[in-house]
């Protein structure tokens, strides 16, 4: 029994423990407890991650502008600065302008918050470390993150201010157009794996870093950069932060907000940055795998020595650390871009999306679909093992999706995992 895997198995684990200790309880209670554990875990992450990212943002901004950034609160590095800001924001008066539509004005921060938080339900943090291991995990995350725009638009509309209205309008136009190339780019690695389940996409990339989907074929390589650009735009980060655009619109859609409601927008923004970076890590950069066989060796060791669930759990925690490191570096990269590049004009933003990114992503999608067929059209030398990718994706099949033991664990004793070999050498042969 391994705790902290998908909610179903944690629920079963809780149920078994209740029965074992002869405590009162049935299936419903066990699953409620499991759900609560997960909610508390992600809510903590959802609160702590923005805390660190906002501090990081200020430090990065400071360093790029040849300043120091926060230095006072919490020692030399000012690492408690965001917490101090949070305390200040909670104390502020909850203002609502007289012109505003009160109900919508008060609701919209929650809408943004819930949409951003909901996406974390399907985001795996490691091998099976996921609240709900959905078969359509990627689709679910993209769908929920597309709801964030509604909160922003409502905030802009209900504020009763022209700055906010312009910010909301720009946001709606921008996000609705950028959603299309984002979804298409996310499909390019999905074609290679044949699965929308992010855990399965992660398992698919076991082995060396050359097994990562970004190196799968030329199209996924380009798709990563296009996806990352579009994802930066979809979380309204500079150079695409037209909805805020401080130099033109005061503060855009959140001009009228103050105090804790204002901070909800920012928590959601930073959490979404992590979420899109997490998707990028799973779709292109090997998920929780380190790329130099460390996780795989530990998996093999645990399987060989029979360390039980504790050993497997430790490996998963290391995988979690690797995943968070990767995703945080992408977030760091987004900050770096923000403080380096100037903001685009709204027409330039729309042109970049509709005239360049959308055709590019469509071409990548088409290319990724045709690539395996192209490989099949090439002649093969006799005696060579057929390692070419399947047109419908080389999915890692699990006998039991809810099984406690990851499917590739037994495979990874012989490096690299056979499922991973299938494709890699196929594309390597062509290069």
């Amino acid at each position, binding site marked *: 029994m391994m705790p902290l895997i998908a909610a179903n198995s944690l629920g079963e684990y809780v149920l078994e423990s209740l029965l074992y200790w002869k405590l009162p309880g049935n*299936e*419903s*209670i066990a*699953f*409620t407890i499991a759900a609560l554990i997960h909610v508390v875990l992600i809510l903590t992450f959802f609160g702590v991650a923005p805390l660190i990212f906002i501090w990081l943002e200020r430090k990065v901004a400071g360093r790029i502008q040849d300043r120091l950034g926060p230095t006072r609160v919490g020692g030399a590095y000012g690492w408690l600065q965001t917490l101090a800001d949070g305390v200040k924001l909670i104390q502020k008066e909850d203002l609502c302008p007289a*012109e505003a*539509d009160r*109900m*919508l004005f008060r*609701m919209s921060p929650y*809408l943004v918050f819930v949409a951003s938080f909901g996406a974390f339900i399907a985001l795996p943090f490691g091998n099976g470390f996921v609240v709900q291991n*959905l*078969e*359509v995990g990627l*689709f*679910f995350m*993209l*769908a*929920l993150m*597309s*709801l964030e*725009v*509604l909160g922003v*638009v*409502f905030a*802009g*509309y*209900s504020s*009763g201010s022209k700055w906010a*209205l312009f910010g*909301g*309008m720009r946001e*709606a*136009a921008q*996000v*609705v157009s950028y*959603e299309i190339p984002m979804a298409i780019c996310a499909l390019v690695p999905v074609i290679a794996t044949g699965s929308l389940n992010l855990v399965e996409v992660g398992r698919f990339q076991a082995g060396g870093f050359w097994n990562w989907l970004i190196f799968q074929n030329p199209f996924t390589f380009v798709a990563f950069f296009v996806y990352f650009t579009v994802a930066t735009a979809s979380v309204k980060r500079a150079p695409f932060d037209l909805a805020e655009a401080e130099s033109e619109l005061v503060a855009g859609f959140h001009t009228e907000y103050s105090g804790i409601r204002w901070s909800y927008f920012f928590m959601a923004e930073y959490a979404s940055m992590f979420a899109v970076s997490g998707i990028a890590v799973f779709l292109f950069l090997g998920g929780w795998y380190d790329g130099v066989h460390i996780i795989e060796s530990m998996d093999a060791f645990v399987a060989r020595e029979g360390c039980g669930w504790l050993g497997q759990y430790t490996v998963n925690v290391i995988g979690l650390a690797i995943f968070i490191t990767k995703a945080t570096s992408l977030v760091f990269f987004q900050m770096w871009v923000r403080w380096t590049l100037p903001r685009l004009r709204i027409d330039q933003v729309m042109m970049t999306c509709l005239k360049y990114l959308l055709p590019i992503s469509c071409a990548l999608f088409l290319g990724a679909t045709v690539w395996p067929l192209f490989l099949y059209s090439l002649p093969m030398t006799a005696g060579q093992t057929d390692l070419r990718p399947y047109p419908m994706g080389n999915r890692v099949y699990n006998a039991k999706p809810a099984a406690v033991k990851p499917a590739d664990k037994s495979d990874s004793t012989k490096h690299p995992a056979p499922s991973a070999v299938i494709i890699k050498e196929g594309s390597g042969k062509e290069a």
Partner: protein
Amino acid sequence: MTGHQLLFWVFAAVTCGGAIAVVLTQNVVRMAFWLIVSLGASAGLFFLLNADFVGTAQLLVYVGGTLVLLVFGVMLTASGPFSKMQTRPGELFLAGIVAFLLLGLLGSSVCSVNWNAVVAATNHGQPLLARQELNHGYNKPEEGNTGHPLGMAFLGMRPDRDLAPGTKTLSTGYLLPFEIASVHLLVVLIGAAYLARAKRRVQPNE
């Protein structure tokens, strides 16, 4: 009451409450907000039924797509802030009649189904099993168990009428209403395209 049933009632109540609030609100954007609540809760009902894909598609298409366009349209076209929708009593009366007719239609089609026969047909004539082992589709669970009675009925085969033992006449299922609805959507699309084009054609002549 199990946790599943409790969640069902919560989601169902939120769906209905949101829908009623849509009707009772006059502000168009607030209506959109209540529609989000209602559609989101119905997506929750889909998730509760293990229909993850349908629930996600509901969120993406209706909430994330249609509603954003609706709010965007209101923001672009509204002459003043917070545009209200004034309904005259006559319109209210007419809309009420249509709504109750639709309710009657939906209610009668739900009541006309012999649910025991549906269960018997999907479980291949076997008696009702324990809840966990109930088969919801025609094909086996190993094969995905995807051929569900409702989908079959849309294709023109009603399990309770056509597969029950001793049936003589075959029904058409819901094939005709399904096709009418799709043709209706096509008509709406063509009409919208026509309206959009006609306006553009007038302008150069002026």
